[in-house]
Each structure stands twice: as structure tokens, then as C-alpha cells.
């Protein structure tokens, strides 16, 4: 395609609708319109004009607002479908195979398809990320394609426009004028904070051009926001882990290299309903208990620089801290949140070594379920020897007792009891409420006396280095919105013809009421001819015609 040469002599890029320089309509369609299309100042959206290589075709595809809106709609539908069945992190299965089986078992073939298409982990599915990426490409290319010509056109605008351009503006005034009309109009417009430039017999008054950049600033904000979200997937930028820690345990903090946490204790306080807390009485009566505080007291340690994992000998205490709900423990960019708890897990069990017949006790022993000892010596020389310990006894396999987990949920003990009466020792396998005597009847038994328990705290470990980036993106987005919404780009063109008559045209990208208010003041001050709103005239006429028809 060739350049379009306007009657005024200016060369316009192909596809231009209104001459960049004088504003004359450049094609027949535009000539026949009553009002000019001022959307992008009549410039050519760049992509529409070239359509040659594959690169150009891809470029044009993404430049289209229709495509952009289409991508947004597809994303919305996908996100909506993603809420129909639970996402994988809310499914009671951990391994990939189990998760897949779960969807099939519970939801049938729908679940199978749902899982196969990646809806179970929507935000990490490659096609969803791909779509978001395409939206980003669309935002960037569509903005570039519109911003560049618009910027050029607004930067190069001429004061004197062709009368055909002015007559196609919505606000138009024509009529006689005095010798000082232009001067006075310029005064008043400058007074109203317009930037006025003059050329020969005309003037251009302009205000708030920057509001035209609002949508592009807005898009920059969105791109920065998406960039921040993208960074979350890079190692080191975003941590969201769970740490279960039991009272007395010391644990390395996941994804926080060099940091070790010790739990001193978990506390759950409830309101008593007495004294100052009387006001809670009614609620307590209604629901039983009302929690006041969930708290884990922790000690944070740091392994010294250069020390290796597992080398806990000279780790340094950093801080003691109480983690409460909504009051995370923050250190070095990390935050530990109180998220969950588990009360009354077994910690120790106490037994009495009893003669089965007489019921006579030879003494008590306490087994630490977290760190059991081998021998428990009683005062009269009796010894209970621990032969095997199965913290979460789950049955026998090939005659061997098994444990299902490392946690003392259902402890089983294989013990050998030796007393002065039974010097050869008696073997017994003890679980809660059950005793097996595998090698024949025993004279002695371990009688259950009691337990001590401990609580477990579920903490969330979080680090988010992308927050400032997301914040910046959001801020720029809002600046763009405000820029485009609360400010308008208003312009007046005034020309005095050779015979002294005045031709005035006005345009704004929004808020025509404001534009007219400005113009009223100028008209009064400079005795300009009365203006009319061509669009309102057209609408009124259409209405009249419509009424005549009925």
C-alpha cells in the first residue's frame, strides 16, 4: 500500500482516515460522515495497514481488541469451570496417581476428563498459563499499535485545520466576529488553564492531553502485575509451605535454608465467660466454647554461615517468639503463621509391672514415645526391656509388627519383663487395650497407668518477594485508571476567516458537559457565535423522524 497524500501536501501512512496535519477526511466513507471518527485521531492502527509476512500476521492477530476480549472470555470460562470440582490441593490424596484415581472414583468419567485436561490444577496447567501469556502479548501489542500512531499524531498536530475537519466536529460554531475576538478567546482559554498556540488566523487550545495515555499506563500496570505473578514460579521468590511441629520438636524450616525452629508449646485459650469476659457468656452458652487464642511459642535458630545441614551443634538462637493467629512471626523476609493445630497426641505412657494373680505392683515405668529407652529398671531389681517399639502399630506381616506412620498414634511395645520371681523373663506384646503373650502365659503384666500428651502446631511458612512488584503494578494500574477516568482531553480550534467570521470546533474524549461549560465562559468573554452540539442535533432529528413515522 502506498502513502496517502492529502490535498494539503502532507504524506500520511496508509490506512489513515483523517489527515494527520490538516484533518481533511482521506476516504470517501469518512467524507460522507457527518461527524469525524476521532477515536485515535483518525490515525491508522499500524497493524491494519501491513499484512505481509507470518510475523506480521501473528502481530495483527494479537493487535485485535476482539482477540483480546476473546482471550479474556475463554479465561473466565476456564476459571469458572475450575471451581466446579475441587482443585487438587483440596483432594485427600498426595501422589499424582492417587489424585488421578480420586477424580475418577468420585466423579466418574467427568472426573477423568477434568483431570486429563488439567482443570484439577488449573492455575498451573500449561494451557491456562499459556492463555494468560497470550493475554499479556495481546495487551502489549494492541497497546503499542495504538499508542505509537496516537502519540505521533497528537505530537504533530497543527493549529490550522481544514474547515471540513472542523465542520465534522461535534461542537461547532460559525458566525461573525470582531477584530479582537481571537485575542479575547485566547485570554479566556489561557485563564481556564488551556495550552494555547496560535498560527496566522487561528488558535488551538488544548487541556489534559495526558488523559489520553490512561489506558496505556493502565496496561503497563497490568503487565507488571503479570510479570510479578510469573516471578512467583521462579525459585526463591515465593514460598508457601506447611510445617507441622510438635511440642519439644526441633525442625528445619522448609524452603528457608539455615533456619531451624523449636516448638516450646502450643496453647489454645477459650473465653471463660466470667468477669470481664461476661459479655461472651451468651455465645458460650450457645456454642459451648469460644476460642480466644491459638498460640505456638517457638524459638528460632540459625545455622551459622558455612555450617552444613544436620550440623546443629553450634546453631545460634535468633529469637523467641509467640506466633498467634493473624500475628505471624516475621524474620528475614519469611513469615510463620499459626494455621492449624492438633491436640493431645500421645507423648508418654506409664505402666505398672503387676503380678497378674495377686495384683501386686513391682513399680511404675514411663515410656517416652518420642524417644524410648531400652531398659527400664525398677527398684526391686525388676527390669522391663523394650525389644521393639511400633509407634503406629498396624498389624503383623510375616510375624513382624508393622508401623504405619512414625507418629505415636497407636503405640505397640514388645517387652521382656524380668523380676526376681521370673528371672528368665517373660515376653509380651502390648498395644492399647490389648496384650499378646506370644511365648506362653506370663505371671506378670504391664498394667496401663496413664498418658501424657502433647500438641502439634500447623504453621504456614510464607515468603513473597513479588509483593512489591504486584503492588507497583496495582498502583500503576490505578494511576492509569484515574488518568483516563478523571481527566479529559479537551480541545478547541478557532479560526477567523478573511471576511472576519469565526469558525470554532470543540472536541473532548469524554465529559462533553465540562467542555461546554468551558466554552460557555469563553463565548461570553469573547462574544463568540453561539455553538451547537451536532450529535444532539442529529439525535433530536432522528427522534423527530421516528415520531413522524409512527
Amino acid at each position: 500500500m502506498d502513502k496517502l497524500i492529502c490535498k494539503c501536501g502532507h504524506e500520511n501512512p496508509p490506512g489513515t482516515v483523517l489527515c494527520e496535519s490538516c484533518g481533511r477526511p482521506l476516504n470517501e466513507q469518512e467524507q460522507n460522515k457527518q461527524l469525524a471518527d476521532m477515536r485515535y485521531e483518525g490515525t491508522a492502527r499500524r497493524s491494519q495497514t501491513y499484512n505481509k509476512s507470518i510475523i506480521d500476521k501473528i502481530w495483527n492477530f494479537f493487535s485485535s481488541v476482539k482477540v483480546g476480549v476473546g482471550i479474556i472470555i475463554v479465561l473466565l470460562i476456564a476459571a469458572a469451570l475450575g471451581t466446579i470440582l475441587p482443585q487438587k490441593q483440596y483432594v485427600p490424596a498426595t501422589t499424582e496417581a492417587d489424585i488421578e484415581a480420586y477424580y475418577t472414583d468420585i466423579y466418574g468419567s467427568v472426573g477423568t476428563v477434568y483431570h486429563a485436561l488439567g482443570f484439577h490444577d488449573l492455575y498451573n496447567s500449561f494451557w491456562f498459563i499459556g492463555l494468560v501469556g497470550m493475554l499479556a502479548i495481546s495487551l502489549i501489542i494492541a497497546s503499542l499499535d495504538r499508542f505509537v500512531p496516537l502519540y505521533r499524531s497528537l505530537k504533530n498536530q497543527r493549529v490550522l485545520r481544514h474547515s471540513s475537519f472542523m465542520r465534522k466536529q461535534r461542537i461547532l460554531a460559525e458566525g461573525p466576529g470582531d477584530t479582537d475576538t481571537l485575542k479575547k478567546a485566547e485570554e479566556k482559554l489561557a485563564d481556564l488553564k488551556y495550552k494555547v498556540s496560535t498560527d496566522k488566523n487561528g488558535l488551538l487550545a488544548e487541556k489534559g492531553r495526558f488523559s489520553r495515555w490512561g489506558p496505556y499506563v493502565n496496561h503497563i500496570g497490568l503487565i507488571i502485575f503479570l510479570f510479578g505473578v510469573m516471578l512467583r514460579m521462579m525459585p526463591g521468590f515465593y514460598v508457601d509451605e506447611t510445617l507441622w511441629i510438635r511440642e519439644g520438636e526441633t525442625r528445619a524450616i522448609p524452603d528457608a535454608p539455615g533456619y531451624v525452629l523449636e516448638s516450646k508449646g502450643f496453647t489454645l485459650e477459650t473465653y471463660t465467660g466470667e468477669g470481664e469476659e461476661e459479655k461472651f457468656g451468651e455465645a458460650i452458652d450457645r456454642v459451648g466454647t469460644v476460642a480466644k487464642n491459638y498460640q505456638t511459642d517457638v524459638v528460632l535458630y540459625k545455622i551459622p554461615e558455612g555450617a552444613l545441614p544436620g550440623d546443629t551443634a553450634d546453631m545460634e538462637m535468633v529469637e523467641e517468639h509467640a506466633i498467634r493467629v493473624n500475628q505471624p512471626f516475621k524474620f528475614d523476609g519469611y513469615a510463620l503463621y499459626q494455621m492449624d493445630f492438633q491436640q493431645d497426641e500421645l507423648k508418654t505412657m506409664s505402666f505398672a509391672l503387676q503380678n497378674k494373680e495377686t495384683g501386686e505392683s513391682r513399680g511404675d515405668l514411663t515410656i517416652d514415645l518420642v524417644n524410648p529407652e531400652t531398659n527400664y529398671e525398677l527398684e526391686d531389681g525388676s527390669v522391663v526391656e523394650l525389644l521393639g517399639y511400633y509407634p503406629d502399630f498396624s498389624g503383623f506381616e510375616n510375624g513382624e509388627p508393622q508401623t504405619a506412620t512414625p507418629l505415636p498414634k497407636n503405640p505397640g511395645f514388645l517387652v521382656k519383663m524380668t523380676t526376681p520371681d521370673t528371672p528368665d523373663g517373660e515376653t509380651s506384646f502390648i498395644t492399647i487395650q490389648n496384650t499378646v503373650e506370644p511365648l506362653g502365659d506370663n505371671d506378670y503384666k504391664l498394667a496401663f497407668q496413664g498418658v501424657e500428651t502433647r500438641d502439634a502446631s500447623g504453621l504456614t511458612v510464607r515468603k513473597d518477594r513479588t509483593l512489591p512488584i504486584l503492588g507497583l503494578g496495582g498502583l500503576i494500574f490505578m494511576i492509569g485508571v484515574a488518568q483516563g477516568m478523571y481527566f479529559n482531553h479537551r480541545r478547541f480550534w478557532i479560526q477567523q476567516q478573511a471576511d472576519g467570521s469565526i469558525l470554532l470546533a470543540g472536541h473532548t474524549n469524554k465529559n462533553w458537559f465540562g467542555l461546554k461549560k468551558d466554552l460557555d465562559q469563553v463565548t461570553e468573554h469573547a462574544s463568540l457565535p453561539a455553538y451547537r452540539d451536532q450529535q444532539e442535533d442529529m439525535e433530536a432529528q432522528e427522534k423527530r423522524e421516528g415520531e413522524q413515522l409512527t
Partner: protein
Amino acid sequence: MSTEKKRNKKKNRTIMRSVILLLLVAAIGYTIYNSVTADEVEVLKVGDPAPDFTLTDLDGETHKLSDYKGQGVFLNFWGTWCEPCIKEMPAMANQYEVYEDQGVQVLAVNIAQSNFEVETFARQYGLNFPIVIDRDKSVMTAYNIRPLPTTMLVNPQGEIQRIVTGEMTEQDIAGFMEEIKPE
């Protein structure tokens, strides 16, 4: 405008557009790659240097991974509650007898269990290789171990040669030890 100038301009435009598109596609590709691989165990990848650590075994002896440089290290993470771990232990012991003299070291890292449990287990199965206990799970965290058993095969250069999750047969174990034994 001359045709040559025009052609130049068109060429520039194509280059410009290609560069922008390429950058954007690269960014998206990288993001997808990251999200797809992030869920897997292998934050550590084959070829990475194996993170050094130091842990104490049942006899009170300290084992530092880097001290075994020049030998292949068969690093097995396990617990007594994990059935496949228990099953592969005797096979590991058998093969250790064969490959110990050829410069392969087996280190079994127990995940935060009590001395009693680990000692009883080792005695019961007659395990001949050092067993260390990762009491605060820091080595487990450093290696990002999720399912048990996981075995990290470390070559004599101290790099991860292979990551095995799940149970191994005795044949597997022999093959893996062959892979990491020094030349």
C-alpha cells in the same frame, strides 16, 4: 519514498516485531516450564552438586558427605514405617558387601526417628552400612525429599547421578552401584 528505503523499513519492522514476539514467547515458555517442573521432587536435578551435610550415625561417628568425594555414595532416605524402605534394606546390605571394596559408600538417612527404633531395626536386619538420623529434617529439606524411599546416587565427583523414588530390587541396586563406582 524510494523502494530501497521502503524495503529497509519493512525489514526493520519485521525484525522489531520478531524480537518482541520472541521475548514474550520466551517469557511464557519459561513460566510454563517452571510451573510444570515445580511440583516434582526434583528441585535438585541430575547433574547438580549434591548438597553437603553432616550427620551422626548410631555409633556416634560423624559422616560428612564431602568426605566421601572420590567414592560413589548411595544415599538412601528411609523410615521404619515405610514398607518398601524395609524391603530394600537387606538387598542394599548384600550389594554393599560387594561394592564397598570398589569404592561405593552406602549412607542410610533415617527421617527423625528415635535411636531406639533405628537401632532395633538395624540389629534386626543385620545392616552393615552406617545409618545416620536426620533429627530436625534439615537434610531431608535440603534434598527436598517427599516420598520415601528416595535414593540419591552421588558420583565420585560429588554430583547427583540419579534420583530414584520408590522401591528398588536387588538388581536395580547392583546396577546403580555399578553406575557410581569410581573408575
